[in-house]
């Protein structure tokens, strides 16, 4: 009724949705909150994060399409919103590729910076700034192995051990990086 009226008059920006639509969407959001909380009690291994993100995305879409009226609004708004999400996906995906797979091409870059490594001996090295990320790429793959270990930073020994086996170790890690398109596996 009110819906049909708004659909027909494209020019009008007054779009009043029936009360029951808001109530139904609100109820769906509360039910999904309950579902995601309950489902977290069970262990689906590496799928836990995907299940949680899928449910969260459904909730976000309900909010965007109904509460934020994206479904009825000028498609330009939806495009704007999508550009934000796509940019974010690219941003996270590229970062994850870098941090998880650094060293796949050049093992020298995988772990902590080793000042004695061959590539650092070149006279030109260091002119263009340096790699600030020393501990990241290596420490991620030590976590599966030494979760029971000391609660201090990964030691240098673990790091150099981790360097060079980045690829196998990342697939061994139990939890996947979150984000829709962020998985690099």
């Amino acid at each position, binding site marked *: 009724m009110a819906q049909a009226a708004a659909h027909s008059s494209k020019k009008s920006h007054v779009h009043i949705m029936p009360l029951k639509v808001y109530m139904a969407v609100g109820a769906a959001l509360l039910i999904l909150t309950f579902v995601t909380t309950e489902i977290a009690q069970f262990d689906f291994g590496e799928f836990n994060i995907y299940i949680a993100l899928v*449910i969260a995305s459904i909730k976000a879409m309900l909010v965007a399409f109904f509460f934020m009226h994206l479904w009825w609004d000028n498609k330009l708004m939806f495009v704007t919103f999508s550009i*934000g*999400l796509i940019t*974010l996906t690219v941003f996270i995906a590229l970062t994850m590729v870098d941090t998880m797979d650094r060293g796949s091409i050049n093992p020298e870059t995988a772990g902590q910076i080793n000042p004695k490594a061959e590539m650092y001996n070149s006279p030109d090295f260091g002119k263009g700034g340096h790699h600030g990320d020393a501990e990241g790429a290596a420490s991620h793959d030590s976590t599966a192995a030494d979760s*029971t270990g000391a*609660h201090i930073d990964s030691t240098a020994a673990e790091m150099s051990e981790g360097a060079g086996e980045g690829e196998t170790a990342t697939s061994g890690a139990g939890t996947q990086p979150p984000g829709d398109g962020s998985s690099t596996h």
Partner: protein
Amino acid sequence: MHDVADGHPSFLQHHFFEPEQQAEAAKLGTWLFLLTEILLFGGLFCAYAVYRAWYPDMFYEAHLQLNVVLGATNTVVLITSSVTMALAIRAVQMNKSKQAIWLLVATLAFACTFLVIKYFEYSHKFHLGQLPGKYYSFTGLEGNNPHVFFSVYFLMTGLHGFHVLGGMGLITWMIVKVSKGKLSGEYYTPIEMTGLYWHLVDMIWIFLFPLLYLIG
């Protein structure tokens, strides 16, 4: 639709041709702002992804320190506030000012509830020393760099908390506007834009809750 066919409604600014154009321009501007908000939070989501990928076991252990009941309650509170916000806009569209004010006050009350619950969560963590970075002094967690989890936790929920605070300011402003009779079914752009912002704040929490409280 508009009775003022050739007249110039008081809410229409002189650089716009007609009310529809003004409303669409405001909406596009708001969506562009929301886009920057997504990217602002996106940096933190990215940090979360990186650190979680590096320290999956530590993230699991550390997240057990968060109170799922309080987190879930806050999710329900924020979703309910989104419903009352949407209904407040609807009430303004139908020229029901009184109803709109009550719904806005309810939205404000839910936002307050959210922050009060957040305050209790925070003060508990302050008390235990589960703080970001070098301020971390909690000793009950094994594993690599548990302070990193709490840095991410406080940055994400803290930035979100400030957005809730900002939203409360906007909602208060809208209560004033509606009670002064400035908004109606003819012109309700300000409250509609406040709603868009408020729903985005809700949407971000929808992701924060499972990512921080429900890591399986």
